[in-house]
């Protein structure tokens, strides 16, 4: 990047790799689903509010419709009655999509080890980042979100893009 930009000077051109550009686009403004189950949702709302602002990560806009959302933050205890609903929401989201299991109940069942609670959201949906805490402080959730950003920045197009068949003429 250095040699070419010094030769082109102030033309306003930046060179990078395709992977970096795609990952920059994905992490820059991930829209979370407007979804909150229990107490962790209140801490999520605190993270969204002005003290620990989520807008600086581009996540100010919570989409109510799963079709328009990128990130599903499972915030709160997941009951057996709610599990099919969450699975349907996850299925309705379009790729690329990520899941953060916020709090102990979403990560592993938390304080509740009984008939009504699914022991961890990863029993029904694949989870990318687990944030511990009951409920996690806003700083912990922000650390979880930044960890997810790091994870996405480490991905490459080779991992998820299907190989294109060359057509021989």
């Amino acid at each position, binding site marked *: 990047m250095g040699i070419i930009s010094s030769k082109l000077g102030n033309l306003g051109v930046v060179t990078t790799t395709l992977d970096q550009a795609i990952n920059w686009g994905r992490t820059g403004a991930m829209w979370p689903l407007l979804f909150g189950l229990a107490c962790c949702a209140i801490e999520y709302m*605190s993270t969204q509010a002005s003290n620990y602002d989520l807008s600086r990560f581009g996540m100010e806009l919570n989409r109510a419709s799963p079709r328009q959302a990128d990130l599903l933050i499972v915030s709160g205890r997941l009951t057996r009655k709610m599990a099919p609903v969450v699975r349907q929401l996850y299925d309705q989201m379009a790729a690329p999509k990520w899941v953060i299991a916020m709090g102990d109940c979403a990560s592993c069942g938390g304080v509740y080890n009984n008939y009504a609670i699914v022991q961890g959201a990863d029993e029904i949906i694949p989870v990318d980042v687990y944030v511990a805490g009951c409920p996690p402080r806003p700083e912990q959730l922000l650390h979880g979100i930044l960890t997810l950003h790091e994870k996405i920045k480490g991905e490459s197009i080779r991992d998820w893009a299907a190989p294109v068949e060359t057509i021989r003429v």
Partner: protein
Amino acid sequence: MALQTAANTNDPMAEWAGSLEQLKGLVTERALTGETMLLNMGPHHPSTHGVLRLLLELDGEEVITCLPDIGFLHTGIEKNIESKSYEKAVPLTDRMDYLAPMSNNTAYCLAVEKLVGLDVPERAQIMRVICLEMTRLNSHLVWLGTHAIDLGAMSVFLYCFREREELLKMFEMLSGQRMMGSYMRPGGVWRDFPPEFLPMLENFLGYFPSRVDDYEALLTKNPIWMDRTQGVGVIEPEKAMAWGVSGPSLRGSGVAWDLRKSMPYSGYDMFDFNVPVGEHGDVYDRFMVRIREMRESVKIMQQAIKRLPAKGPFRSDNRKFVPPPRAELGQSMEAVIHHFKLWTEGFAAPDEEVFVAIESPRGELGCYLHGTGGNKPRRVHFKTPSFMHISSLPVMTHGHLIADLVAIVGSVDVVLGDCDR
């Protein structure tokens, strides 16, 4: 008629999704013919304050019937408590009504104290009153923020959460946790106020009334707010009492019933405060009642800080039920024995039942506790105000539009963790 489940109907095709036959007695005839529409305001919805499912029968935009379907957050806390000793169950009670955790703690601790006959020293009672009123402010701020944002006033949400951050810092000072502190224990509170707590609280109470003035300036005389909330969701006082509505929702209908004044607990009879009462029983009156309650809470806290004895026990010293402080363990053999017994097995409670109700920010929170004679409870049942209020939603929403439904659900201040437990 016995309990009907989808499993015991004889029809092999009877799945709950979309079978009108099972709704026969519950919606009007016009829904079964298709004249009115059945719409699902599902568990995932931006305005239902948690995972509440409302099955609406709509004639155009007008709600004819509203069938709430709850249980999406049912955690089995009551059954979990049956397998824990009395003191270990306190953190589980925090998580029921997660906007007012100290209220749930207090209801449970008062029930335990009534069951075993444990005294609470006066200083601990005043500390409890201070924490309960802080919890009330906390809960009303979240209510106001979410209610306003549902009706379109988005900046109120950010202002309310700014005030809430200060309160959460103070909770963290007390118990180490912002929300689920488990600060109340049977016999008193967990530990004494740290020295920096009271100055910070007094400072907060100094500027908080002017913040409430700000919220009122934004909403109270706002023509859009008044249009959307006045005359909406009216419930008459007789109906409200019959349906078990309590708290600010009952006071909005004109019934001056507040458990802190009428059947005081934990030293509330020492304080002088008013009980704000509405007139029409609509959403606007419930809003005004809660705003005025926030100001009254400030008054109660200021009086409580003055009355607080400078030194004194923060928890009962009955060592059969309350573990001794660690400093005592090096001095006394009895303290070591009590410590061992209480932390391994816990104390025993008689095979009797008690019922205690307190005024939580949502309404009357009742705790029914039945002991076994051993160290674990036989049954704990919490009668939560949100449970009763959601059951009275069909009465409040009949004949209103869907947009009014959002206002009504916000105004009765339901929390699904409180409802489903």
